[in-house]
């Protein structure tokens, strides 16, 4: 019965796996890096990204091949699955890092583990393109007031970005708009009325019950689909989970604002009137997407990147009315006193991006920064955004144009198109200009510019926009010059403190919010106040307030850093 004894040892072993790997340590440098010294010899870099990417084709796509041809670099990339947050922690515990890393919110952890290389000198010496790209924003690349090193090149945002299209706000089906004669959608009342009217006339769609409003509240997406709209509807820009007082820089959890309670009360009302999908808080993301692809969800409140997959199915449908069941975007607020702040100018937001780890020798680090610098060159950016001349775009009279058949594939068969061509796949890892910036040939760097965006709309979208007298959805939203600026950029993009008293306080607040807000919305209207006020009381616990204070300090430091003091 010896093996039985081992039975209880196994759990003990499991318990300490973290311990074992911590002792392991090690290096994973491979032989092919020996070629690092030669200027353009073939070299392979490993890369980890905390975002998922279903289209990665091991650089066997057309753009990828071109990149390898030009720089000699092949990337061996690993993309996280879902919202994987433990991967980076595990890397730190084992001490085994990839060569290049895109850690999203986990930058601070890596910095504390001394895993990231300070890029300041490397950029200065070897990366003229990157230097030129960020010449006005160098302060925003620095890590913190105490440690002004540059660890991450913020590739998630484009420099000089002007958004030409809206992907957020409140979404309403084009079919609903059409049937109701394109009414004005500006306040929650307008929005609710439109849903109600259409629902009353069409209780079923294609034989299945109509769902007037469905939200995605699965795991962390509850922030995108349920809590973020509360500040959007009450006229605030996105600062993550915080409201930041523009004068005192005092940070507090945004749900504590009394205005937002009214937004949640509205959701409660929608639920009790049977307009809000009963499964909103129990469904998983894929169920939510399946409902949208079935065309029977009249409205949702979300960001387009979260549901575009489902919309693509509708766009590709052969049924004309189904093509009309995609969503338009509206700047809906509680009442007309508030303005949607989606398009506030926050300056160059910095934030998430790509870094080089200590896994690489000095010579290899130089190769890596040169690779990133090539990606930041005009040639590299045009390749990443437009593809290969003569294949995915043509130059006519000095203007880059996308042939109609390429555009059609891009619109209706996006995933396969990306996989094959690699267009857009490398943007997230490359330092780049944003939409609306022109290159030396007076062409836009990206393919997102007004004419191109309009060309990419489907016919039903074009029809709807025409009725609203707009060229793009953005035209319906309040423009940036009405909305002021933000000296700290966008708080959701700042590295969060890793001190346990902050992280634990924050996690606690999230546990409370994610439980109580759904509970309040699903309660009968007379119980709403009790539950919601109870939540605010829980959120006023000492450790949560201390956490807010720490974030206030972070904001103050950031403002000083950005102003270069």
């Amino acid at each position: 019965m010896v093996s039985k004894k081992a039975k209880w040892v196994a759990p003990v072993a499991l318990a300490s796996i973290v311990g074992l790997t911590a002792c392991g340590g090690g290096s994973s440098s491979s032989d092919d890096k020996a070629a690092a010294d030669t200027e353009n010899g073939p070299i392979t870099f490993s890369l980890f990204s905390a975002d998922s990417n279903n289209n990665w084709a091991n650089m066997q796509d057309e753009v990828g091949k071109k990149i390898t041809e030009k720089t000699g670099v092949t990337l061996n990339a690993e993309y996280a699955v879902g919202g994987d947050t433990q991967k980076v922690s595990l890397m730190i515990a084992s001490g085994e890092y990839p060569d290049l890393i895109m850690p999203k919110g986990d930058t601070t952890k890596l910095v504390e583990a001394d895993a990231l290389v300070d890029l300041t000198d490397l950029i200065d010496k070897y990366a003229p393109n990157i230097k030129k790209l960020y010449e006005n924003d160098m302060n925003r690349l620095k890590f913190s007031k105490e440690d002004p090193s540059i660890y991450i090149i913020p590739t998630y945002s484009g420099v000089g970005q002007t958004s030409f299209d809206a992907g957020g706000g409140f979404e309403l089906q084009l079919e609903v708009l059409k049937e109701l004669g394109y009414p004005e959608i500006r306040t929650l009342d307008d929005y609710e009325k439109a849903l109600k009217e259409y629902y009353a006339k069409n209780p079923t769609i294609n034989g299945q019950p109509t769902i007037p409003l469905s939200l995605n509240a699965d795991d962390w997406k509850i922030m995108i689909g349920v809590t973020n709209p509360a500040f959007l509807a009450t006229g605030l820009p996105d600062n993550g989970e915080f409201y930041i007082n523009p004068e005192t820089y005092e940070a507090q959890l945004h749900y504590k604002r009394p205005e937002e309670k009214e937004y949640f009360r509205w959701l409660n009302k929608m639920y009790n009137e049977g307009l809000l999908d009963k499964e909103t808080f129990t469904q998983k993301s894929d169920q939510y997407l399946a409902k949208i692809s079935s065309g029977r969800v009249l409205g949702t409140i979300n960001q387009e990147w979260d549901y575009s997959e489902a919309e693509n199915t509708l766009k590709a449908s052969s049924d004309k009315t189904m093509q009309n069941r995609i969503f338009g975007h509206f700047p809906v607020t509680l009442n007309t006193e508030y303005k949607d702040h989606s398009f506030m100018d926050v300056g160059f937001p910095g934030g998430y991006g790509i870094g080089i780890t200590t896994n690489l020798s000095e010579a290899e680090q130089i190769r890596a920064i040169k690779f990133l610098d090539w990606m930041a060159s005009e040639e590299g950016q045009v390749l990443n955004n437009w593809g290969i001349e003569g294949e995915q775009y043509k130059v006519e009279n000095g203007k880059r144009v996308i042939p109609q058949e390429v555009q059609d594939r891009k619109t209706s068969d996006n995933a396969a198109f990306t996989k094959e061509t690699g267009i857009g796949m490398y943007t997230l890892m490359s330092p780049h200009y944003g939409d609306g910036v022109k290159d030396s040939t007076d062409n836009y760097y990206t393919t997102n510019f007004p004419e191109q965006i309009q060309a990419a709309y489907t016919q039903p979208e074009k029809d709807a926009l025409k009725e609203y007298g707009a060229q793009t959805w953005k035209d319906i939203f309040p423009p940036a010059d009405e909305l002021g600026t933000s000296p700290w950029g966008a708080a959701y993009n700042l590295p969060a403190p890793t001190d346990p008293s902050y992280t634990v306080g924050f996690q606690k607040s999230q546990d409370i919010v994610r439980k109580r807000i759904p509970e309040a919305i699903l309660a009968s209207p007379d119980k709403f106040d009790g539950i919601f006020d109870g939540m605010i009381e829980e959120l006023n616990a000492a450790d949560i307030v201390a956490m807010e204070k720490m974030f206030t300090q972070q904001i103050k430091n950031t403002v000083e850093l950005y102003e270069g003091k």
Partner: protein
Amino acid sequence: METLTPGGASNNKPGAPAADATAGKRFKKQSFWRTALQQKYLYLMSLPFVIWAFVFSYLPLWGWTMAFQDFKPARGFFDQKWVGFKHFQELFTDDRFYLALRNTLAMSVMGLLVGFVVPIFFAILLNELRGMVFKRFVQTVSYLPHFVSWVVVAGIVTKMLSTQGGAINELLVGLHIIKEPIQFMAQGNWFWYIVTASDVWKEMGWNTIIYLAAITGIDPELYEASRVDGASRYRQMWHITLPGIRTTISVLFIMSIGHLIQIGFEKQMLLGNNLVLEYSQVLELYALQYGLQMGRFSYGTAISIFNSVVSLILLFTVNGIFKKVSKESIM
């Protein structure tokens, strides 16, 4: 262990003269090495497993030191800051920890009771079946879910319990037992039952196999004799089949007690949602969220040590009780 060294002490006959005591001791000592030599191939064969157990089960215990430090990665062992029981104090003063502990114990005790009784019952029933083809068929069908991943099972369960076209709600409404579809997945206090029920569905058939094997080992003469004595089918089950597999039952029971606190977290994570968090948070999820995901390696280790210690205590207690009551034990 004794069965492995049959030579040993038994060579000392009870009647041996007392004067031989010292010689006997030497003899004993020699005899260990002698038997070891005799059985060198047996020892050699077990060596890889001893090494395996040492490397994977004992060596990692070194990592427990982390729980007593403010562990920072990429720093040498001697550069770590030692903090004594700080992390344990923090753990034992956190309400969430007790909540997670309650949920863990509740779900594992429920799972243990149901997941234990049902397979035994099922095995006995299967054993009574006479049609061989039908028996094999039922057995295969019932253990197939074991090979389905929890991700898929969670999908099936959520779909079945859905308010929009979920089979269970349709059935209940159709039979006029309820008027409105029930939101099963939104009811915190039902979560434990849903987890237990899906666990039974998934693992019942698989757990039956070992009991069926044990039943096969019962001497058929016993059944024949009892039939001659006029025992009915029920009597045979009660007096022969059940006692026949008693040893198997108790060994498996003691072992599952050892796992009581380690019930994994896949089920809870996949079936749970924000609404039922108060009932779905289990210790391993807690360790993941408040330990690893925040980079608090020390805190996570402290939770794991607590788990292991509780498991050990439970195991030894139950084993001790069984030893006293039924003279059966696994150690």
